[in-house]
């Protein structure tokens, strides 16, 4: 097995088995894990406490118990998170950090059924005002205080600034990886690309950075081969389950860039420089754009994606629409019209973690491939 294959296999294994990653971390450091709900929580605060931040993104499973607590039109991430809460899956977490940038999260945060303490905080939506930074920095101060109490550790500004640098380094390496992956679709297929990115939710970030850095270096040493398939940019919340990515691969598609909340949206911007770490983290939210969950009066998501298509020489955009995600559904008609005007082809597929039948997705993807 080549070094590239080994690294991909290790990262895929971590991405597929977060529980083992948590156990390994505990064995290694004696410290536990803190769950991080979507979207855009300041993981750095958990990292600075020496605990492992673990992303909570639900999973592919059938829903039954959660139906008692959620309407059927709640998105499938939250349906599966609720189902797993009720099964006690998250009870080993020391705490759960819970941002609430959409209505479903806001409501779910008030009915957590697991035993771990939940720390809820709010992202301001009137984001471009200086007051928003102050408000969010204060929210983060409260998050830090609560974490200190629950975890029984002191989280210093110095440690937090250091963690921000660790995360920024990871963001930089991830941006380099996604650029490189676009040149090597024969090696980094859609599923592997996703696994490499997803592993960052379950690893101490500097370790993830080191592995991806090595992967990047190995990739760079290889010649770039011509790709005969089609290149696409993915947009949406997430592109799961893996069957969706396999369908893309089977139909000759390579993912050359993404605008997914679970992937590049998390690392396309660094946390800005400064001295007050909480203010720096707050400022990241102000500078962040192009996401349906962050109010953007200028609706820059469409133009941002069009730049992404141009920059990555993509043939089209695949819209991975999370079923019943209101914010994403509201954004869609706006950027779809912009794509049409710019002559950018796009495919709409529906993402549902509960699904086990992918015939409609296969038809859509195959048709799109034939259309291009």
């Amino acid at each position, binding site marked *: 097995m080549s070094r590239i294959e080994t690294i991909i296999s290790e990262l895929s294994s971590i991405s597929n088995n977060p529980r083992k990653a948590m156990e390994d971390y505990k064995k290694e450091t004696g410290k536990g894990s803190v769950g991080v709900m979507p979207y855009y929580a300041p993981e750095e605060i958990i990292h600075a406490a020496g605990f492992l931040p673990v992303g909570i993104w639900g999973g592919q499973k059938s829903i039954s118990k959660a139906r008692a607590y959620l309407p059927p039109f709640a998105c499938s991430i939250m349906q599966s998170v609720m189902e797993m809460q009720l099964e006690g899956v998250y009870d080993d977490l020391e705490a759960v950090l819970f941002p609430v940038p959409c209505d479903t999260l806001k409501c779910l945060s008030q009915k957590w059924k697991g035993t771990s303490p939940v720390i809820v905080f709010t992202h301001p939506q009137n984001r471009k005002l200086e007051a928003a930074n102050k408000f969010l920095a204060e929210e983060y101060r409260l998050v830090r205080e609560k974490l200190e109490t629950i975890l029984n550790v002191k989280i210093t500004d110095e440690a937090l600034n250091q963690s921000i640098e660790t995360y920024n380094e990871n963001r930089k390496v991830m941006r380099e990886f996604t650029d490189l992956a676009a040149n090597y679709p024969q090696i980094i297929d859609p599923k592997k690309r996703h696994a490499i990115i997803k592993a960052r939710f379950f690893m101490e970030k500097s370790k993830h950075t080191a592995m991806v850095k090595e992967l990047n270096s190995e990739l760079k040493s290889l010649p770039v081969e011509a790709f005969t398939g089609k290149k696409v940019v993915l947009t949406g919340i997430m592109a799961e389950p893996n069957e969706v990515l396999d369908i893309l691969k089977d139909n000759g598609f390579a993912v050359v860039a993404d605008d997914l909340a679970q992937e590049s949206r998390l690392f396309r911007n660094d946390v800005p420089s400064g001295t007050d770490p909480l203010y720096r983290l707050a400022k990241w939210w102000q500078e962040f754009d192009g996401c349906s969950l962050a109010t953007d009066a200028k609706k820059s998501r469409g133009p941002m994606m069009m730049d992404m298509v141009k920059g990555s020489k993509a043939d089209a955009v695949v819209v991975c629409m999370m079923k019943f995600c209101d914010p994403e559904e509201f954004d869609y008609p706006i950027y*779809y019209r912009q794509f049409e005007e710019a002559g950018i082809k796009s495919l709409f597929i529906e993402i549902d973690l509960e699904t086990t039948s992918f015939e*409609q997705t296969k038809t859509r993807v195959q048709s799109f491939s034939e259309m291009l």
Partner: protein
Amino acid sequence: MFTMGIDIGSSSSKVVILEDGANIIAGEVIQIGTGSSGPKRVLDEALSKAGLKLEDMAKIIATGYGRSSVEEAHKQISEISCQAKGVFFLVPSAKLIIDIGGQDVKAIRLDSKGGVKQFFMNDKCAAGTGRFLDVMSRVLEVNLDDMAEYDARATEPATVSSTCTVFAESEVISQLSNGVAKENIIAGVHQSVASKACGLAYRCGVEEDIVMCGGVAKDLGVVRAISKELKKPVIVAPNPQITAALGAAIFAFEEVRGANK
């Protein structure tokens, strides 16, 4: 040269045998789809009608929901591409196709050469599909083939507001028990189907000529309701259930011809 297109849908199986990419020698439909005896039976029927054997086919292309399970096929092409190909062959002025089958609804926009420019399919559930009409026909005790006639006699179409087929069924039952005429309920059912399909058509961009195909296109009540909603005439493709199979047979012909050039 003979080519064959096989379209295995969720609720029907269709085969077209084409001679020299132009003449339809056989176009058969059996009203049961993938996973049933339908695919084998329709294949046998089409060959028998044409007086041909499977070996006489220069190429066979499968399409539809069950396309990957057709062992006789040399290749699979999606039903969206095949519908576009088949409809454009029959109606070269087509710009927008509305295809309503057993479990999905598609709006397909064509470019001037008949290529697929954009398409949308129903998402979230099977509301507004052929299955919805099947359920309503059973509750109303009216054959699917007779629903258009009932619709034409409607004086005041009822409202069928539920998206969910099961809830819509309850809604219809309650209207029946309240004495609403079947004619008016059926017109309401057709409007409900039309509103779902037109939602996709609006997303796609409505441009004439608009052509309907798929099994539901045989129900002229739905066609009228769609035309009314879009405020534009709607052409029903000739033999609308076999258009995707026809498209597959044309693709097969073009591939053989391309390979022989």
